[in-house]
């Protein structure tokens, strides 16, 4: 018995020693390859046989076809480059990308979500490289408007969003707005809403006519960000929301946010949004809207292709203008940023690739697939119908500074905090005031630690 005991102590002692020697220093220190600062070049053909591993989340209808097409064209142009595409849903990419990037064999090109939780953490960990040098070669700065470049920029230490270093470029433009069913609005005798008041009037009319005003499914939790974002933007205006999300000032407990929360809870009480939305999936709600069972549906322009295929000319798209503003303000920006990892052995090829899939020709490919490119070619006239609605709105909000960032960029944990709080708000588990306090608690903790 005694001998047995001693052996076990030995085993434990050895394993503790092994574990400690493996983790002798704080976890994460010394990780992250040093950024190569060698000369950069546009030469791809001379790079020899290269396999470029690319992680993207372009899974939406239309967008994935455009991506396939662009990849094939790039390989045709440069036969020495083989593209190994790894594509997964946004949520899956968010979960796995951190591990992939911090491993020994990171992908060459990745789509990084903007804001502090993802891009900020990657920059801080030295996992994606600044593209300022390649910007010099490919002149992205003159192709993209300043506002879009800013969203993809961080300070070199990853602590300040919209800093001096460019870390990625984006293919698609994104506006979160309100899709509406033209048939239903005509039947109700109302116009497409352009302000919160009009939207509420239209919804009241739909409710009175026995039609579900707005299909909304939130079991996946993320649609809550868009619902709150659209309403908050229409009440608070672009300046206030921009400052809040970038950490430049303001609080979530400010009147505008409380009002937005009140509005949403009110919609829920009046039955303007799907009852029991927390148990309804996003896709089911969209299907309901597409089947003509609701007047409105809030989602981003990335669903343009799917909605236009399902509803054709019956679908319209609108955004809301705040009371004292003269142009619409809403959540949006651009698709995830295409970034080059510091661990990539072929940064020149990687940069040429992201230029190829983001440039003006690529923009046309996206338009062909019914998707909104981040920069609409100047000579392009959109097809009448939903595409005109979407493209015009995007043009309007980007030129007037009416785009406010996704709210989950605010802090590393804000996605969880906000999505679960919105679920509580729509189910009347919390008062609008308590809702904003939940958000503020997370926010002030992060701002205080910076």
């Amino acid at each position: 018995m005694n001998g047995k005991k001693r052996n076990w102590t030995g085993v434990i002692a050895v394993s503790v020693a092994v574990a400690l020697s493996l983790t002798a220093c704080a976890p994460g220190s010394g990780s992250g390859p040093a950024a190569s600062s060698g000369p950069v070049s546009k030469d791809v053909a001379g790079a020899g046989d290269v396999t470029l591993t690319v992680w993207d989340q372009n899974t939406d209808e239309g967008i994935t076809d455009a991506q396939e097409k662009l990849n094939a064209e790039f390989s045709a142009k440069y036969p020495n480059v083989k593209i190994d595409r790894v594509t997964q849903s946004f949520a899956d990419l968010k979960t796995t990308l951190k591990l992939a990037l911090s491993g020994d064999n990171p992908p060459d090109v990745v789509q990084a979500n903007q804001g502090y939780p993802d891009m900020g953490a990657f920059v801080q960990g030295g996992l994606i490289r600044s593209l300022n040098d390649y910007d010099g070669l490919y002149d992205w700065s003159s192709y993209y408007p300043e506002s879009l470049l800013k969203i993809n920029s961080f300070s070199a230490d990853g602590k300040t969003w919209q800093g001096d270093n460019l870390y990625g470029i984006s293919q698609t433009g994104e506006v979160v707005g309100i899709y509406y069913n033209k048939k239903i609005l005509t039947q109700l005798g109302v116009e497409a809403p352009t302000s919160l008041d009009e939207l509420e009037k239209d919804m009241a009319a739909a409710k009175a006519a026995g039609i579900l005003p707005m299909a909304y499914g939130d079991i996946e939790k993320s649609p809550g960000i868009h619902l709150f974002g659209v309403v908050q933007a229409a009440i608070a205006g672009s300046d206030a929301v921009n400052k809040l999300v970038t950490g430049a000032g303001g609080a979530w407990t400010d009147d505008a946010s409380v009002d937005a929360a009140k509005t949403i809870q009110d919609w829920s009480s009046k039955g303007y949004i799907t009852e029991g939305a927390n148990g309804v999936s996003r896709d089911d709600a969209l299907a309901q809207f597409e089947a003509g069972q609701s007047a409105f549906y809030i989602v981003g322009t990335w669903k343009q292709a799917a909605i236009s295929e399902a509803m054709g000319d019956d679908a319209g798209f609108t955004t809301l203008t705040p009371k004292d503003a003269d142009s619409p303000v809403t959540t949006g920006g651009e698709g995830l940023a295409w970034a080059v990892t510091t661990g990539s052995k072929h940064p020149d090829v990687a940069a040429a690739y992201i230029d190829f899939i983001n440039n003006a020709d690529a923009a046309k490919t996206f338009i062909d697939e019914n998707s909104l490119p981040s920069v609409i070619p100047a000579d392009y006239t959109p097809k009448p119908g939903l595409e005109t609605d979407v493209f015009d709105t995007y043009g309007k909000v980007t030129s007037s500074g009416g785009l406010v960032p996704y709210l989950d960029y605010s802090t590393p944990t804000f996605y969880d905090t906000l999505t679960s709080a919105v679920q509580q708000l729509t189910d009347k588990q919390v008062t609008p005031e308590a809702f904003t306090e939940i958000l503020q608690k997370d926010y002030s903790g992060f701002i205080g630690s910076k």
Partner: protein
Amino acid sequence: MTVTTRLRSGETRTAGVAPGRTRRRRVDSLKAFLYVAPALAFSLIFLIVPTLQTAWYSLYDWNGLSAATWAGVQNYIDIVQDEQLRDSFMHVGVLVVFYSFLPIAIALLLTMVISRAHALRGMSFFRTVLFLPQVIASVVIATTWLAIYSPNGLLNTLLRAIGLDSLTHVWLGDFNTALVSVGFVGTWLNVGLCLVLFLSGVGNVQPELFEAARLDGASGLQEFFGITLPALRGQITVALTLTVVSSLKTFDLVYITTRGGPGNSTSVPAFEAYNRAFNSGQVGSAASVAVVLTIGILLITALIGRLQPKDTE
């Protein structure tokens, strides 16, 4: 039993006296270690070292990418102070009732009925059906139940069909019913396991005992409490251990059906650990949750082990 014990201690005594045999025993135990070595190396690399690493991470504030900062026991203090984390442990407490206590009670009831109806035709068919949930992958089960619980799913359709419209619910989306709904899936899942265990236990009881009881005029209930239940003590302990552990480490059902929602009403420690480590970049906090969960499981398993009757070793 007592005979073997005496023999064992006798052996030890003689081994202590003869030095030649001690050396031989040492060589033997070295050989034994060689046999164990592959398994030991395996568990060192894949179990013990990672566990210790996790414990080490739990003392840091780390986002998984950049250098970590020392946090001491703050992550553990947060488990008590952070409402969300505290709630997740509460929720798992509720789940234990649904995953463990209810299935065992139901399975005992079924055992009582079934064991008296051995001659029932197609018995093995029913047994298979009841055990089926254990065989199906948990993702499939969760997806199936997601459909059953959906607003126009099987459950609500059934309720409407029998005129109970007022009881229809968005089961997984309602703060009041989500946790219970998830728990009930666990009940459904574990009844079969418990039943199969108990039936095999009843099968070991000598039929003469039942016969004697019946001759003495014992009722079905008396028979159950007098013979079946005591005979099943060992099986109940095993069932308790298996189901309690499975409830404490619940992850898949929650991940697929609710992702912890609505709000945080169905979040459980295993889900929090995953979500914090891989989504929200709070690796230290995730590790501390994992450590507390592991210790909790070990303690509870040890406590349940005490219920195990000593003579069935």
